[in-house]
């Protein structure tokens, strides 16, 4: 440890940034939580009395429960798709020689840098009434009238799954690439064929990457208001849409409560994913 003056300098160093984040990240969130326990007010942001009405309303209203269910179903579908498609792609990327793997990583990062609104717009252009799919199908003569592909849960799933796919691939590929090949070789030396080796060795050892990929995709899905709105429209509102709706109608406490319900969902499902996959037991292995 350096002499005492360097030590105290270190603390002084970290203080301003930490204070900043506390003031503009943690603080406002705590304030939001506080607001969620108040009633609505027409003149102020919120009513002065403390109440659990918001949460009670959410829990008791079948409308909210339906939306919650739809949110979970949509998220599950997106996670499933990303995993099913992402894993094979990750396997391929992980096996590439170093240089090509780095190039592949860059190529995977590029679409993620484009704003979601642009990517969602792309799907609008593909799935819309005058979009690519309908035009193509019409030209070929398969349909008479354009199909309503947008404003469905399927469009949301398709759009978000393709937007978030690179996250899953990168997550899993990183874990796979850092796996010691000798584990697979040991399994094969013990007589396991390629499929058994994959199922009993590779797959379990890749659980940290799978877990972090699933978590990332799930959390980003929960927050993806713009994509959900553009592709799902009014018929396919998810929890995040309800937060926004309450904001534009100045129902701040209700919006706050919904936001924390969203957060609670995020935490519960995250804990579930971690509990099922238990990536911790694998961490530390691998090169």
């Amino acid at each position, binding site marked *: 440890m350096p002499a005492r003056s360097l030590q105290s300098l*270190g*603390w002084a*160093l*970290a203080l*301003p*940034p*930490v204070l900043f*984040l506390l003031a*503009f*990240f943690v603080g*406002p*969130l705590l*304030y*939001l939580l506080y607001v969620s326990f108040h009633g609505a007010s027409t003149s102020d*942001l919120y009513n002065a009395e403390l109440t659990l009405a918001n949460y009670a309303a959410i829990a008791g209203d079948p409308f909210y429960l339906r939306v919650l269910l739809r949110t979970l179903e949509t998220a599950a579908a997106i996670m499933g798709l990303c995993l099913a*498609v992402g894993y*094979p*792609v990750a*396997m*391929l990327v992980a096996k590439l020689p170093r*240089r090509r793997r*780095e190039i592949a*990583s*860059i190529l995977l*990062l*590029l*679409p993620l*840098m*484009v*704003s979601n*609104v*642009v990517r969602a717009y*792309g799907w*609008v*252009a*593909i799935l819309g009434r*005058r979009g*690519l799919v309908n*035009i193509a199908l019409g030209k070929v003569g398969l349909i008479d009238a354009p199909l309503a592909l947008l404003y469905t849960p399927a469009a949301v799933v398709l759009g978000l799954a*393709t937007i978030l*796919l*690179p996250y899953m*691939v990168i997550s899993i590929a990183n874990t796979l690439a850092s796996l010691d090949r000798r584990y697979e070789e040991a399994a094969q030396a013990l007589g396991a064929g*390629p499929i058994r080796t994959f199922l009993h060795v590779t797959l379990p050892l890749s659980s940290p990457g799978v877990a972090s990929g699933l*978590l990332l995709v799930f*959390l980003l899905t*929960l*927050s993806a*208001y*713009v994509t959900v*709105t*553009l592709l799902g429209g009014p018929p396919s509102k998810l929890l995040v849409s309800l*937060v926004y709706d309450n*904001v534009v109608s100045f129902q*701040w406490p209700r*919006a*706050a409560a919904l*936001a924390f319900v*969203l*957060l609670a969902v995020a935490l519960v499902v995250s804990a579930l994913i971690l509990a099922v996959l238990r990536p911790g037991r694998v961490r530390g292995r691998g090169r």
Partner: protein
Amino acid sequence: MRGLAALRTLVVVLAALVIVAPIVIVVVTAFSPTDFFVFPPPSLSLRWFHEFFSLSEMRDAFSLSLELAVMASSAAVVLAIPAALFVARRSGPVVTAVQALFLAPLVFPTIILGLALLLFYRTIHMPILPGLLLAHSVVGAPYAFRTTLAGLQSFDPALEEAGHSLGAGPLQTFFLVVLPLIWPSVLSGWLFAFIVSFGELNTALFLTGPGHTTLPIEIFSYLQFQGSQLVVAAASAIQVAMILIMVAAIERAVGLRRLVRA
């Protein structure tokens, strides 16, 4: 086995297609001369780009996004460097907590953060522009933190000690020894924060207001309310172009491959 490998290749090709196709379609459409969406466009024209720059709200949104991104990434870097310096050489529960704090905005649902800041700003009467800047600084800080920390961790601590042994105090050592050697990491953090700010939606959704919108929010409004005007495609193409310029800047400054290696 060959069948499985062929199947995997198919999956990879399909995946690449679905990821990239929407972006490509939008960018190509931006060059379309037609009034409505036609793909592929019959010819190429800059009509919609002219339209984009002739609309004051589009121009303003673009310049606001640009200014915001520059300032927010600079703020993010200024925040991240001291924090990364603190975390890099120490261990313990406090250090873990600071690190978690700085990485939290990466995974925390930004829509909730946007709402929280909206309420907070309203309560303390924070004007729009500074409020947006602060929000984007929070969102961008983890990126700057991550890359700077990685740079510091691969930095030989003996070099700092050598500086000290020759009489350089902590500040001097930082500016004369550490910074010159980690600046690529800092710069790439800046560039990542820029890219994130430039495309950021969820906090801007709540924190922008009349007269002060960012480019992605402007695009979103147009898509929701004005439908099929292809000026949106041009706006989107410009967004993508900015990203590519930044990526090229990263490549020149730091080398993209070095980035993904970390």
